């Protein structure tokens, strides 16, 4: 199996998304508040994964422009949820860098009342799978 | 007991009933037999004591075909069977005058024998009126005492309650005998490994002599002709060469009465080899209770039986492997 294919499969595994379900309606891009700042648009995330070009996705500006607002996740009629795909790509990057991500069980112990709520919610969103 | 005999005489004499179905004193202290009494005079042999374990509901199938009403003495657990038979149109309520007789637990002669009692001449303490805690037994080999509870049938230890589910009148006080949980034994087996389960039942069923006593005594096994007596299924009611037949017979029998079995315990009472046959029926009852909601056959005469009923959300058969 090629490295590219492996990466694409990893994305599918982390996100739990089957990109083949996409019918290319574009509702994700229509819903995205960061659309204009993205080089690769939300509806394109899907085809990048299908085409096994995770590399470009990982190196894109979009990767860090996605707000994880999950509007696309909520509205996607096909259960494809591009927000989850880009989140998975981010996970990959994070994992590659330090390999020090937390397991969800560890979070409660690290809770600090000073921590901003936003951060917690964001963390839980990522780990809720 | 005289109270019951007097009442029976009254009802016979005033023409309310044409006969009395009860028990007749045996020729040994522990073997009264089910009997029909057609005259007030014959009632002198009537007996009702701790050894009157037989469930008379089944005899009412034939009695329902006779002219006139039959006075039938039913213990609390027997009334469930009677209700179930009404539901299945096998007995005629109008043909029965039911005297609900109280129950202080029924005795198992085998349990007495297993305590080393031999050569029995007389037994004291089994009378319904006594409510004794002990049985005094005179034997050829001397006097023995056995605690009443230690001589009781298994079913009485897990009694469903002393309430008559159907009756015209009630006679005699009952005494609570329940001191165990009905499904404990089933749960214990469920927890065994498949090999242990297999060994347990293999050992028990290897004793089976295919006498069909369990079937013939069972009020739910009231078929005019049992499938095991018919050549339609090519299944024998007699002994076969391979031990498979016993398993087949007991599983199918339990399945046929599933949802209809009131757990009256007669099968285990009559088995000459002491096979705990109720463990089959109770397994089904436990499963039905757990999977489809509590159901007690014979509680009433009109509810839908679990196997002729369903819900859209019923458990899938794969649950059997998942329950662990």
């Amino acid at each position: 199996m090629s490295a590219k294919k492996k990466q694409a499969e990893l994305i599918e595994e982390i996100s739990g998304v089957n990109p083949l379900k996409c019918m290319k309606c574009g509702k994700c891009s229509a819903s995205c508040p960061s659309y204009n700042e993205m080089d690769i648009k939300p509806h394109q995330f899907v085809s990048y994964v299908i085409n096994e070009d995770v590399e470009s996705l990982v190196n894109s500006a979009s990767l860090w422009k996605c707000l994880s607002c999950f509007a696309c996740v909520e509205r996607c009629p096909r259960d494809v949820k591009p927000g989850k795909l880009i989140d998975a790509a981010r996970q990959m990057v994070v994992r590659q860098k330090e390999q020090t991500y937390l397991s969800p069980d560890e979070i409660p112990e690290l809770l600090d009342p000073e921590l901003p709520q936003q951060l917690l919610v964001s963390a839980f969103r990522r780990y809720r799978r | 007991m005289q109270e019951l005999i007097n009442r029976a005489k009254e009802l016979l004499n005033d023409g309310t009933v044409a006969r009395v179905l009860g028990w007749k004193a045996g020729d040994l202290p522990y073997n009264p037999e089910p009997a029909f009494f057609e005259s007030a005079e014959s009632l002198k042999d009537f007996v009702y004591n701790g050894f009157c374990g037989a469930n008379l509901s089944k005899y009412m199938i034939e009695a329902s075909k006779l002219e006139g009403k039959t006075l039938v003495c039913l213990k609390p657990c027997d009334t469930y069977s009677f209700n179930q038979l009404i539901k299945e149109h096998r007995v005629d309520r109008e043909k029965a005058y039911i005297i609900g007789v109280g129950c202080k637990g029924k005795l198992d002669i085998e349990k007495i024998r297993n305590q080393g009692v031999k050569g029995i001449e007389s037994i004291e303490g089994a009378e319904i009126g006594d409510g004794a805690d002990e049985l005094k037994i005179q034997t050829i080999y001397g006097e023995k005492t056995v605690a009443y509870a230690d001589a009781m049938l298994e079913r009485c230890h897990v009694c469903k309650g002393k309430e008559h589910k159907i009756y015209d009148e009630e006679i005699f006080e009952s005494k609570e005998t329940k001191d165990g949980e009905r499904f404990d034994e089933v749960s214990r087996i469920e927890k065994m490994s498949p090999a242990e389960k297999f060994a347990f039942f293999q050992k028990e069923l290897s004793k089976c002599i295919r006498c069909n006593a369990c079937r013939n005594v069972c009020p739910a096994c009231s078929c005019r002709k049992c499938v095991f007596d018919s050549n339609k299924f090519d299944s024998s009611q007699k002994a076969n060469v391979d031990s498979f037949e016993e398993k087949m017979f007991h599983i199918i029998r339990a399945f046929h009465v599933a949802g209809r079995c009131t757990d009256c315990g007669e099968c285990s009472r009559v088995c000459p080899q002491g096979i705990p046959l109720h463990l089959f029926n109770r397994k089904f009852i436990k499963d039905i209770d757990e999977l489809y909601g509590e159901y007690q056959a014979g509680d009433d005469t009109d509810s839908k039986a679990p196997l002729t009923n369903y819900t859209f959300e019923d458990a899938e058969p794969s649950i059997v492997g998942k329950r662990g």
Partner: protein
Amino acid sequence: MQRIGVFVCHCGSNIAATVDVAKVAEMALMEPGVVHAEDYQYMCSEAGQAKIADAIHEKKLSGIVVCSCSPRMHEATFRKAAERAGLNPYMVEIANIREHCSWIHKDMEEATKKAVILMRAAVAKVNLNTPLQPGESRVTKRALIIGGGIAGIQTALDIADAGYEVDIVEKTPSIGGRMSQLDKTFPTLDCSACILTPKMVEASAHEKINIYTYSEVENVSGFVGDFTVDIRKKARSVDMDKCTGCGVCQEKCPSKKAPSEFNRGLNNRSAIYTPFAQAIPNVPVIDREACIKFKTGKCGICSKVCQAGAIDYEQKDEIITEKYGAIVVATGFDTINLEKYDEYAYSQSKDVITSLELERVMNAAGPTHGHLERLSDGKAPKEMVFIQCVGSRCADDRGKPYCSKICCMYTAKHAMLIRDKYPDVNVTVFYIDVRTPGKNFDEFYRRAVEQYGVNYIKGQVGKVIPQPNGKLLVQGSDLLDNRQILKEADMVVLATAIEPNPDVRKIATMLTASIDTNNFLTEAHAKLRPVESPTAGIFLSGVCQGPKDIPETVAQAGAAAVKAIGLLAKDKLLTNPCTAHSDELLCNGCSTCENVCPYGAITYEDKEVNDHGIREVRRLAVVNSALCQGCGACTVACPSGAMDLQGFSNRQIIAEVDAICR
């Protein structure tokens, strides 16, 4: 002992390439009862069938096993062949050595071994087969149509024209259905009412057609050819015979606050009302929920103004029981509830409407008398946005997984009509795909783009945001230009998914007709029997079977009519002889079987039996073989084994089990 012939089919190379057919035939001769075995290229061919017939005659065969394709394919063929040769058709069994063997196994030895076992099982079964005679049941020459829309009307007209009595049961006060709510129809743009109304009139005037409006089917029993149906005629509170349809009562009615169903709740109607001007019958109904007389006991104005004296406050629901030979379901559709699509702001703004509501807006008889205006403030819109696929093609449970089929075309129609009548209005359509398979359909859509300048943008809308200035901000994306679009619109029209009429589930249960996960009625065969339900005598017309447009609906309505006529034309029906029957001597009369019979085919009788010399009256189960469909639920429920199923008897199935396990 039977004399069985075994016929092994090569099916060209379909079977013969993986199964040693000669060996199967050879092995067949070893089986008890088998006196003849042969193999042949195509058993289903005329020559193959002739071989079977010859063997029946020459070898005096009493039973036949054909080792071939699935019985679902050719069982009927071989049974007919046997029957022509004088053998009871139910003495034929099929061993499926194609679908269940040659097509799925590659190794010849293995496949042959399995084919032999399948053959043995079939032989073992035939050894126990008995000749069965189909029963006969009468056919009531009358059809019931459930639903009075265009599908129901067309089916009724076609059946009635063939000379059979037809009753239409319509739930609402008038026939006409969805089509009566439409303004124009695609792709010809003719006026919907102009083509529908004459059909409505024709139906009501037809001497063979009887219409029950404001009525519902309450109960169905019986079976193909002989259904008994209870119809509830809801109390109209108006005497149909006396009413002249003058309309004064509706004018004078003081209660005018009830939302008009016909206009999709966009305006109100009086408590006594006819849904629309061309309603048939033109007899109003009192909505007892809205009527002051019914609510307070005071008023009675309609009664006072009615010169015909037709108002009857005392009228009660009436149950009519009628017999039918065939039933056609034509219950149509509704649009889905949009509450799960809050992003489109349907509940937040009056100016976000469904396409069906737009039909009413565009219609001269509608709430705006045909003027295109915003429902919030009555202003003429300048920017209109159409959103396609709202709730259709949706993988989650918010919407429907299927394509609603009609939306692309009616949206093109709406866009075109608006651009035609109001050239200064800009029309934008957000689409995912534009689907136009159909005669003159794509041309129609292209005209909207090329001739009328409708702006089609590929990309679903993400959100509609009502603005403080009353405008609607539409956030979409243009996938082809790769840009996000924010557009201020005056009105947004949602091409809402359609779904089967919610009542269909209840009706399907009454008819024991199956429905799929989307509540569409299932057809007997997706390709070959598209207008029949798998339940005999039940036919499907219109959208109740699946999304379709008017021409398709009318075509299917005609097809359903033909199928119903085919049934009604028969005097007698042959019934499936594979039914349950009870052995009187074994029956306990316990009612267990009755409790599981889905057809109410089992009843109990007190009957005298002679049980080996014992004569007594017993309560016995009796199966009505005309009602019994042969599922076999009773056979397993029966504790004594008295109940058995012909054609699939206990002994036959056991023989198959034995043959497979040996």
